C-alpha cells in the first residue's frame, strides 16, 4: 500500500470571497465555510479568524486541531467514517496544506460535572513562553469558533465539532486540486526479505470504554475494550483516527497529531535505509484490572512477534493508570526478544524532584524523555483573545474560580496548553538530571 502525500505550504491566510491558493497564500471564502458548518442544526453560529505565529493572541476554548487534507487519488476520502462511508484509505494520493491548521474552539459546559468524561478545553498562545511550549504556535492558524446549540449531550457536541472541523479542513484542501505541489513524499512499508531490522510502532491508547466517546476512534468508531489492532500508518495519515473533541488537554493528541504522527513519519524517513518499518500496533490501554493489563501486554507483544518485529518504539496516550499497561507491554516484548524504546513525557512534579515516571519495570532500560508535562509556566498578558471564552477556568473541578483570559496566567502544569506536552517526540524537548 503506497500513499503519496503532496504538500502545499501555507505561510499566509486571508479571509476573502473565494478559495484560492498560490505563492504560499491561501485565500478563503469565509461565507461559504460558514454556511457549510451551519448545515448542522447543532451549530447555531460560526466565525473565522486568522492568527499568525508571533501575534500576541491567546486562543481559548480549543477543542481540536486539524490539518487540511483531501484525497485526490485512491479509494475513500479523508476522515473516513466521520465525513464519509467506511472505505479503506491510505492508498493513492492525498493533498495537504502544511504550515497551517484549523483550530476549532467552542464554548461547551457539558452535562458531566467532573471525572474523566467531563469536557475540557485548552488554550494556545501564539507568542512568548506559551508559544515556546506548544508545537501549534508555529502554524498559521485558522480559528473556527463554533456556537453550539444549548444543552447538547457530550456525544452530540463532539459530533458537531468534529464534523465541522473535518468539513472545513477538507474544503480548504480542495483548493489545491489540479495544482502542482511543492513536494511529494511517498509512504510505503518495508519490503519483505530485507535484512534491516523490522521495527513496529506500538501506540498505546487510553480509551474510556464506558464513555459516550472513548477518546479514540478508528474510522469513526470509538475503540473500547479492544485487544491489540494492526493499523497501517497510511490510514493515520489519511485521518482514519479521531479523538473526542469535547476534551483537549496537553498530553492528549489532536487530530493534527494523528495526521502528523512524528514516530510514524520518523520511521518512514528511516524506512529502507536503516529500518524496515512493519506498521503500527494500536494497543488499547488503561484496563481496569491488573489482569486486564497483563492480558493486553501479552496480546500486544504476541502481535509484535507475529509481525516478526526485531524492535519496537513504544509510546502512549493517557495518564498514570494507562502507563502501567505500557510498562507491562514493554516487559512482555522484551521477554519475547523484541527490543523496545519507550518515547514519552515525564510526570515528576515539584520542580522535577519526584519520580519522573509513574511505574517501572526493569526491562524498560531504554527511554527517551520528551520533557515534563508538569512544568510550571507563567503566561504574560495577551493583546487579544480569540475564541469563545473571555474568562477561563484553570482548575478543572466543580466550582473552580475563573480568571480573565486576556490577563497573566500562572499554571502549575502544561495541561491546559494544547500541544504543551511533546507526547510523541516531535520536538527536541527532554529532561536532564541535575
Amino acid at each position, binding site marked *: 500500500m503506497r500513499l503519496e502525500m503532496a504538500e502545499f505550504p501555507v505561510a499566509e491566510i486571508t479571509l476573502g470571497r473565494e478559495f484560492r491558493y498560490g505563492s504560499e497564500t491561501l485565500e478563503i471564502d469565509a461565507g461559504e465555510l460558514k454556511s457549510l458548518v451551519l448545515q448542522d442544526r447543532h451549530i447555531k453560529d460560526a466565525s473565522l479568524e486568522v492568527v499568525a505565529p508571533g501575534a500576541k493572541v491567546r486562543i481559548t476554548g480549543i477543542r481540536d486541531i486539524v490539518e487540511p487534507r483531501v484525497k485526490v487519488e485512491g479509494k475513500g476520502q479523508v476522515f473516513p467514517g466521520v465525513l464519509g462511508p467506511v472505505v479503506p484509505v491510505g492508498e493513492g494520493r492525498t493533498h495537504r496544506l502544511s504550515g497551517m491548521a484549523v483550530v476549532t474552539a467552542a464554548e461547551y459546559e457539558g452535562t458531566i460535572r467532573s471525572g474523566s468524561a467531563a469536557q475540557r478545553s485548552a488554550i494556545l498562545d501564539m507568542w512568548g513562553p506559551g508559544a515556546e511550549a506548544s508545537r501549534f504556535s508555529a502554524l498559521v492558524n485558522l480559528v473556527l469558533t463554533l456556537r453550539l446549540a444549548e444543552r447538547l449531550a457530550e456525544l452530540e457536541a463532539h459530533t458537531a465539532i468534529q464534523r465541522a472541523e473535518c468539513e472545513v479542513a477538507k474544503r480548504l484542501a480542495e483548493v489545491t486540486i489540479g495544482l502542482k505541489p511543492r513536494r511529494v513524499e511517498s509512504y510505503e512499508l518495508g519490503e519483505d526479505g530485507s535484512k534491516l531490522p523490522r521495527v513496529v510502532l506500538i501506540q498505546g491508547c487510553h480509551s474510556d470504554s464506558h464513555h459516550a466517546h472513548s477518546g479514540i476512534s478508528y474510522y469513526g468508531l470509538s475503540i473500547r475494550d479492544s485487544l491489540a489492532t494492526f493499523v497501517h500508518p497510511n490510514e493515520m495519515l489519511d485521518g482514519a483516527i479521531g479523538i473526542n473533541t469535547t476534551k483537549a488537554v496537553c498530553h492528549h493528541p489532536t487530530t493534527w497529531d494523528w495526521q502528523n504522527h512524528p514516530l510514524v513519519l520518523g520511521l518512514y524517513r528511516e524506512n529502507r535505509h536503516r529500518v524496515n518499518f512493519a506498521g503500527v500496533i494500536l494497543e488499547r490501554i488503561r484496563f481496569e484490572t491488573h489482569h486486564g493489563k497483563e492480558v493486553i501486554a501479552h496480546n500486544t507483544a504476541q502481535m509484535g512477534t507475529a509481525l516478526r518485529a526485531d524492535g519496537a518504539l513504544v509510546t502512549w496516550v493517557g495518564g498514570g493508570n494507562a502507563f502501567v499497561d505500557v510498562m507491562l507491554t514493554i516487559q512482555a516484548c522484551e521477554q519475547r526478544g523484541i527490543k523496545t524504546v519507550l518515547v514519552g513525557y*515525564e510526570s515528576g512534579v515539584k520542580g522535577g524532584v519526584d519520580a519522573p515516571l509513574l511505574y517501572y519495570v526493569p526491562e524498560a532500560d531504554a*527511554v527517551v524523555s520528551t520533557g515534563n508535562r508538569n*512544568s510550571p509556566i507563567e503566561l504574560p498578558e495577551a493583546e487579544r483573545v480569540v475564541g469563545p471564552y473571555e474568562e477561563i477556568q484553570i482548575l478543572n473541578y466543580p466550582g473552580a474560580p475563573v480568571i480573565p483570559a486576556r490577563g497573566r496566567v500562572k499554571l502549575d502544569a502544561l495541561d491546559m496548553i494544547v500541544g504543551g506536552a511533546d507526547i510523541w517526540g516531535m520536538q527536541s524537548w527532554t529532561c536532564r538530571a541535575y
Partner: protein
Amino acid sequence: MLTVIHIVNQYFGGLGGEEKAGSPVVVVEGAAGAARGLEGQLGDRGKVVATIYYGDNYFHEHVEEAKGVIVREVEKRRPDVVVAGPAFNSGRYGLASVEICQAVAEGLGIGCVVGMDSENPAVSAYREYRNMRVYLLPTAESAAGMTKALSLMARFAYRVGSGAEIGSAGEEGYLPRGIRRLQRTDRPGVERAIDILLKKVAGKPFVTEVPMEVWDQVAPAAPLADSSSATIAVITTSGVVPWGNPDGFKTYRNTFWRKYNIAELGALEPGRWEAVHGGYNVSYMNQNPHYGVPLDALRALEAKGKIGKGKLYPAYYVVPGNQGSPSVMKRIGQEIAADLRKEGVGGVLLVAT
C-alpha cells in the same frame, strides 16, 4: 587565582587515626594534609587558604556545634569554593562531608564539591538535600584512588569557584541529586529514539534518558485478631466528598486530605455526595457513592456484630488520588496514619479507585 577551603577528617588532616577521632574542629591556615595534594592539583588555578579538619566521632557527637564552627570559619575567609573529602567508602566521613557542604552552601551560598564512592551511604543524604550548590563527584572506594580523586575534584572545584555554568549530571560527571529539568536538545525525540533502538537491536551500548527506579514495597499489616473490638475507619482515594466540594479538592494533583462525618448516617444518599476525580468516569460513583465509601455494607457488618457497635470511626478520610505525586501522597499517607493512631483506629478499609 581562586581561593579554596578544604575540609577533611582528622586522619586526612594529618592528626592521626581512630585514636584522634574525638578531636574538635581545627583550622590550619594554608594547605595541610590531603589539602597539599589538592593544592598541587589546582596548580596556579587556585590556592588553599585554609584547611579545616575535625574528628570523625567528634563531628557526629556534636553535629550542630561542629557545623556552626565550620560555617563561621569559612565565613571569615569567604573562599570561592569549598572542597570536602574525598571520603571514599567511609560512611562517617562521607556523611560529615555532605552535612558540612549542605551547611556551607545553604548558610553562605558558597559552592561545594564533595567526593566519595558512589556506593557510600552518605550519597542518599546528598540526594535528599538536593542542593544545587553542592556537587558530589564519584571517586574510588579507597584512598588508593586519592590522586585521581583530588585531580577530578580540583578541576571541578575550579569550574564551580570561577562561576562557570555547570550542566547536567550526565554531561558533567557529578552524581544526580534527583532533580530533573526541562530542556531543549539538539535533536527531536523521534530521532533519538530510533538511534537508541538501532543500537539496542544491534547489541551495542546505549544510554537511556530516564533511568529506572526501584520503589518501596509496603508490607501489609497483619490481619486484626478480632475485628469486632477494633475501631475501623475508611480511607478512600475515590474523591467522594459532600456535594458542592466544600474544601475545593481539585480533580488531580491534590496536596491535602480531609475527613467527612458519617456518624449519624446509615448510608450515603445519591445527590448529597459527589466524586471529584479526573481519572475515572464519576457518573457511576455519583449515582452510588458506596462504590467509594461502602457505608451501607459497613453498617450491615456492624448490625451483624462483625464490626463492634459504635466501632465504625465516625468520619471517613479522603483524597482524590488522580495524578498524586508520590512524595505528596507519601506525606498525605503519613499524616492520615498519624491521625488514625491518635484516634485509636485499629483497622482500615482502604478503598482505591
